[in-house]
């Protein structure tokens, strides 16, 4: 009887998870896969075909956008890591008590407003008639309005800004678990700042670095708002192309094929990073 009850409880608890995974992730993806693998012959008539993948892989614009998105996402991840590491180190190891909490909150505050509003914030600052442009003219560094929007650099700033928290949090968590005396022992036995960082702090923080990088990479790759609003005319992001195919062109088949390419790309890169750093997904996330 008891066994029976505990089984019911187990299934009750399992149900939301199964529903969530099934309805929101697995079923749509299976459907997407099927859509991407068919060709529209005429109204309401479809045939299985690989033509959309062929198109995606041969058309220069599509391919270029695909690789650009991948490379820029990797770059955004690297920049985020470089900026977030010292910040996280300061929060975890140098700030004490209240200051630590305040700094942590400061990282969180930008997320109190929606991504859309945040991005508009950047636009207000950076447009031709914006604050920064006026400031530059007032100081005398520019003699006419400067347009700071719609460049790759601006887009990169936006991506890094959006991703910061997702890098800082895992880094702070792993760095906090490093005993101060282990760092001191590193110095005591003759290590310099650089060698302590390389041999002790970074190896210890590796799980945090890897999980932070994976999250930031996936967020950047799948970001839509920031590249669209801050990026330039020719800095098309792959998600924009997916959007265009689905919504503007109503070409669901090609859009679905793009979607699958993005999924495969992120899976391959995450797998590659895990292999490279010799970790399993379980170690990193667990």
């Amino acid at each position, binding site marked *: 009887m008891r066994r029976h009850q505990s089984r019911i409880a187990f299934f009750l608890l399992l149900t939301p998870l199964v529903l969530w995974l099934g309805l929101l992730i697995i079923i749509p993806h299976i459907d997407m896969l099927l859509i991407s693998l068919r060709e529209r012959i005429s109204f309401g008539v479809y045939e299985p075909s690989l033509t959309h993948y062929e198109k995606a892989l041969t058309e220069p614009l599509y391919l270029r956008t695909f690789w650009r998105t991948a490379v820029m996402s990797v770059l955004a991840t690297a920049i985020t890591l470089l900026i977030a590491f010292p910040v996280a180190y300061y929060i975890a190891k140098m700030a004490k008590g209240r200051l630590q909490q305040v700094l942590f909150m400061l990282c969180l505050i930008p997320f109190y407003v929606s991504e859309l509003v945040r991005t508009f914030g950047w636009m207000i600052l950076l447009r031709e008639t914006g604050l920064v442009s006026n400031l530059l003219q007032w100081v005398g560094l520019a003699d006419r309005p400067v347009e700071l929007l719609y460049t790759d650099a601006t887009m990169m700033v936006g991506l890094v800004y959006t991703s910061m928290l997702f890098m800082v949090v895992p880094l702070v968590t792993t760095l906090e678990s490093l*005993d101060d*005396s*282990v760092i*001191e*022992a*590193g*110095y*005591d*036995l*003759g*290590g*310099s700042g650089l*060698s302590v960082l390389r*041999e*002790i702090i970074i*190896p*210890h923080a590796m799980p945090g670095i890897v999980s932070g990088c994976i999250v930031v990479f996936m967020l950047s790759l799948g970001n839509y708002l920031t590249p669209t609003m801050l990026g330039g005319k020719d800095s098309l992001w792959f998600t924009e192309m997916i959007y265009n195919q689905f919504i503007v062109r109503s070409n669901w088949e090609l859009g679905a094929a793009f979607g699958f390419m993005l999924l495969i790309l992120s899976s391959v890169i995450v797998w590659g990073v895990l292999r490279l750093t010799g970790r399993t997904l379980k170690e990193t996330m667990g």
Partner: protein
Amino acid sequence: MTPDLECLDLVKRFGDTTAVDNVSFSVPPGSFFSILGPSGCGKTTIMRMIAGFLDPTSGDIRIKGGSVLDTPPNKRPVNMVFQHLALFPMMTIAENIGYGLRRRGMAKGEIGRKVDEALDRIGLPGIGGRKVDELSGGQKQRVAIARCMVLEPDVLLLDEPLGALDLKLREHMKVELKALQAAFDTTFVYITHDQSEALVMSDQIAVMNAGRFEQVGTGQDLYYRPDTPFVAGFIGESNRWKGRIERAEGDTVQLRTDTGLAMRATGATLSEGDMAEIFVRPESIRLADHAEALSSFDNRLKGTVTSLLFNGAASRVLVRDDAGETLEVNLPQSGEFASLKRGDTVHIGWGAGQATCFGAA
């Protein structure tokens, strides 16, 4: 001979708390020096100043005669075994021990040889390839010491290194540490709050209280000839009284405790009318069936056994005298008191030399 380590008028303040207050000591080469004191008295602070992680507010630290105040921690010829050992969990045992040598830029082959030699020295040959968490507490302990000793420091600092071990292992490691110190022939500065660790291992012990050194001396000095009431109370256990001196003849005094007990005791620089604190160790009180057996003692009492505290070799009896005062007395394990039980009448006595007294405010 220049001392290996010398601290001169060392002071450390954190805000308005003075953690270390005017401490001076010197440690001769090859000796085992302990700093013994209750938790929070400033021991770790001294250690961290010697290692270079804290700057003293004032005073000087000299190693082999030269001041090291301007030397950063990674350049000081001292190494530290941390309270929780602080082995590098991301490295193997061999990498841990070789870390300092790698930092010095020693050739790979030579590092390997030195590491193997160190592992032999600590009695753990062949464990170089293991991970830190595959070792037992005692093994980690020895690896932490080897990691420092391969660098041949002038002074090795140890901050309560046995604190995390269980009792049995701690007893074993006490002997082992002393043997390792002899084997490496290096100056050890050892801090602990455990008096038996300090007494067993040290050549010299400094007893520390609230940032100051109360007394520096050998274990025997501290035990038999404490300089201050704090040392008398901290080392070993004591029956304590407060009282007034009634007569003083040289070092021997006649006094009466607040509870009305008359006693002869030893205490320099005390004169008639002074208030004093008196300490008598349970192990210096003799227990007897008849008053005659105690005729050689200056202080004698008759009392009733109120309780027997069995603790193997350290068993005690609590004896209440006629004035209603309870004394702790060691119970000899030679068999004559095997049948002692609650309510029995016993006689106790102790010599004036075993009752130490200090002037009190």
